[in-house]
């Protein structure tokens, strides 16, 4: 079962009781669904065991390490709602994973709302997980050791926390 992975800010979706049917807060929409050229960025994984690969793709771009919330969205949830997915290389230092990136495209006011429903549905399905800073350090350290990302390409404040090998 393939999933699409997106970084969210858990606390913003907690401002309203979305589990029991309340609408998400405006903060959740504006903070976690910021679009660029009417697209929303997602990482594709083939099953839940690849989740950390997506986390690596996201965290390797950080300028500062911080705990993050990762949401797994069942790909079928998006396709069922007729949202358009387009494959496009993603921005990451994990170059082998660059092509595992998709955009939800042509978003407008109503379809952004539909995408918000998808996120709410995924949170209800408890498909979110927080990765603490220590866990990110471990993922990045292992990735550097395995040659998946180059230590020299990490941002200086991230380098400070990751052994060079």
């Amino acid at each position, binding site marked *: 079962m393939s999933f699409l992975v997106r*970084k969210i*800010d*858990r*606390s*913003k979706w*907690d*401002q309203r009781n979305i589990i029991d049917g309340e609408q998400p807060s405006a903060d959740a929409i504006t*903070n976690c669904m910021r679009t660029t050229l009417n697209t929303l960025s997602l990482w594709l994984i083939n099953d839940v065991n690849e989740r950390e690969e997506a986390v690596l793709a*996201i*965290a390797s*771009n*950080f*300028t*500062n*390490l*911080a*705990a*993050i919330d990762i949401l797994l969205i069942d790909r079928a949830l998006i396709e069922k709602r007729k949202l358009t997915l387009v494959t496009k290389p993603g921005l990451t230092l994990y170059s082998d994973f660059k092509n595992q990136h998709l955009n939800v495209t042509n978003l407008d006011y109503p379809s952004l709302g539909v995408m918000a429903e998808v996120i709410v549905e995924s949170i209800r399905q408890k498909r979110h997980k*927080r990765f*603490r*800073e*220590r866990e990110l350090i471990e993922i990045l350290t292992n990735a550097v050791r395995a040659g998946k990302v180059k230590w020299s390409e990490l941002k200086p*404040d991230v380098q400070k926390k990751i052994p060079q090998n």
Partner: protein
Amino acid sequence: MNESSSIPAPITLSSETRQTAPPEKTDLPTASTTTIEPLTSETSTLTEACKLAQVGETRHQFTDRFLQLIHESEFEYGFSTPADAYVREALNEYSTFAKDWISDLFLKNFSDPFITCAILRVIAHFDYQQMCPQGMIMAVACAAHKNTDVRECCVRCFESWENPDTLSILRSISFSKDWLDEYLKGVISDLERLTNHVVSR
């Protein structure tokens, strides 16, 4: 001890430092402290009063600019903002004074979750020793804040600072929100592992 004697010649230090730094490189406050001539012929009381006025003016300029940057910045976990760079410069130039100014700003805006969170998010990006003790005091104060985002930022600070000395503080905190309490426990567990790792080495 009177109030003026508790300030260790900040203006002299700042002026000397600033003479070596090109003014266009930073937008830290400079004008008021460089244009006022030393009052060598005046009484020491007047000199101290002048220094106090300069410190006050510099603080005013710092807090104004810092607040402006907070409002202009897009805060996203994992990324630094121009506010971080500004505070870094201020810490380099004014050290303890800058930390005091941030603390003052924090206290004045404690009821504003956005500004309080922004300050915590910025100070979390600095080393524990660099922000100690003001940073730690600010973070602890937020553990009891009624806003969830602020309480989360409190934990994030301690997580980022990674100082096992703060374990006793974190163990004294608990949250009613399950996910936040779980996060806190995870951070405590990470710090305990770090402590054990250091001890066992």
